[in-house]
């Protein structure tokens, strides 16, 4: 079977998803996904990871359980999500209505020399999520589908995973702050107020 070409530009996708983001809480998996969210504009409600590979989605679960009245978006790559593939079962079992996971799937380990990930060999992370019990699952391949996904991220009251198939890109680095303690305190202050850091 001929595979569909990967055409979407990941930076454009992320910029569109974060347009008028409001008080959306945002976690990014390590590597290119963290650069993508930073290219769209660093933000106090961003928590970009520089490590902890495989932990982005389940870190988002913790945040979503702690802040049930806020929407939590995790943006990560296919390699990072594959490392934490079991966490999709953990998340689905909890079914947090306010968590959404977007996997930017270019079928490559982008930071290390573009080696093929298992999604290049047929692993379908959307199907995995569905089989784990995610109630809302999307696969996005075309530009006209992005606005619908943005609307779901903002509004849907249910657990969602979307795989966005994106092109292998050569975007310039857009590095977020890398002091983890600063990033932790920054988002806690933005969510819980400045006293949360001082206590």
């Amino acid at each position, binding site marked *: 079977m001929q595979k569909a070409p990967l055409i979407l530009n990941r930076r454009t996708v992320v910029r569109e998803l974060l347009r008028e983001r409001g008080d959306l809480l945002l976690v990014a998996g390590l590597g290119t996904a963290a650069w993508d969210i930073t290219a769209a504009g660093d933000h106090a409600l961003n928590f970009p990871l520089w490590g902890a590979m495989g932990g982005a989605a389940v870190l988002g679960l913790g945040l979503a359980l702690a802040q049930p009245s806020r929407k939590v978006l995790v943006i990560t790559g296919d390699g990072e999500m594959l490392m934490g593939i079991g966490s999709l079962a953990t998340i689905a079992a*909890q079914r947090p209505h306010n968590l959404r996971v977007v996997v930017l799937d270019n079928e490559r380990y982008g930071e290390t020399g573009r080696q093929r990930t298992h999604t290049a060999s047929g692993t379908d992370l959307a199907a995995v999520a569905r089989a784990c019990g995610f109630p809302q699952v999307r696969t996005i391949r075309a530009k006209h589908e992005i606005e619908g996904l943005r609307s779901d991220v903002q509004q849907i009251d249910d657990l969602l995973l979307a795989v966005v198939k994106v092109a292998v890109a050569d975007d310039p680095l857009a590095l977020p702050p890398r002091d983890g303690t600063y990033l932790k305190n920054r988002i806690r202050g933005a969510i819980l107020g400045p006293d949360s850091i001082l206590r």
Partner: protein
Amino acid sequence: MKTTVNQPTNHSHSRHWASDIYDVFKAQDIGIVSYVPDAGHSKLINLCESDPEIRAVTLTTEEEGVALAAGAYLGGKRAALLMQSSGVGNCINMLSLVRTCSFPFLTLITMRGEWGEFNPWQVPMGQGTPAALAAMDVLVERVAEAREVRGTVLAATKLAFNSYRGVAVLLSQQLIGAKQFLE
């Protein structure tokens, strides 16, 4: 093959130590308890699962509990991770998150591979557990007596959340009772 757990008989404590841990969780506002189950933790897991104020989260691998606790803390909730010593190795790289971001992190670890162990496959990770935690800058407390559980877990919880550190309490196999396979 029988797989029952013998109960320790050498303590005069009237309540089970798992109830003491549960009391500390309640007093210290632990709202999320994640775990890969261990027989030694089963009583505590049951107490947490039947409490509507505690979110019990079953994990596929222990490292998920490290990231989950970090996310919960970002949102203002305290979490604890329950596991068996065999799960410590699964957590090693994820503990970078705790160290790099100065996250408070509390884990209670039931020990295998030591006192009276029958299963040789448990021994390497059980014996390696304190060093693996120390290598990732997690502070380690050990408790072998039921009457010391409450105080040790309370102190570990305060240490973790007041000093923004990873703290592990090792619950000795002597406390739990060695798993019996044959008798």
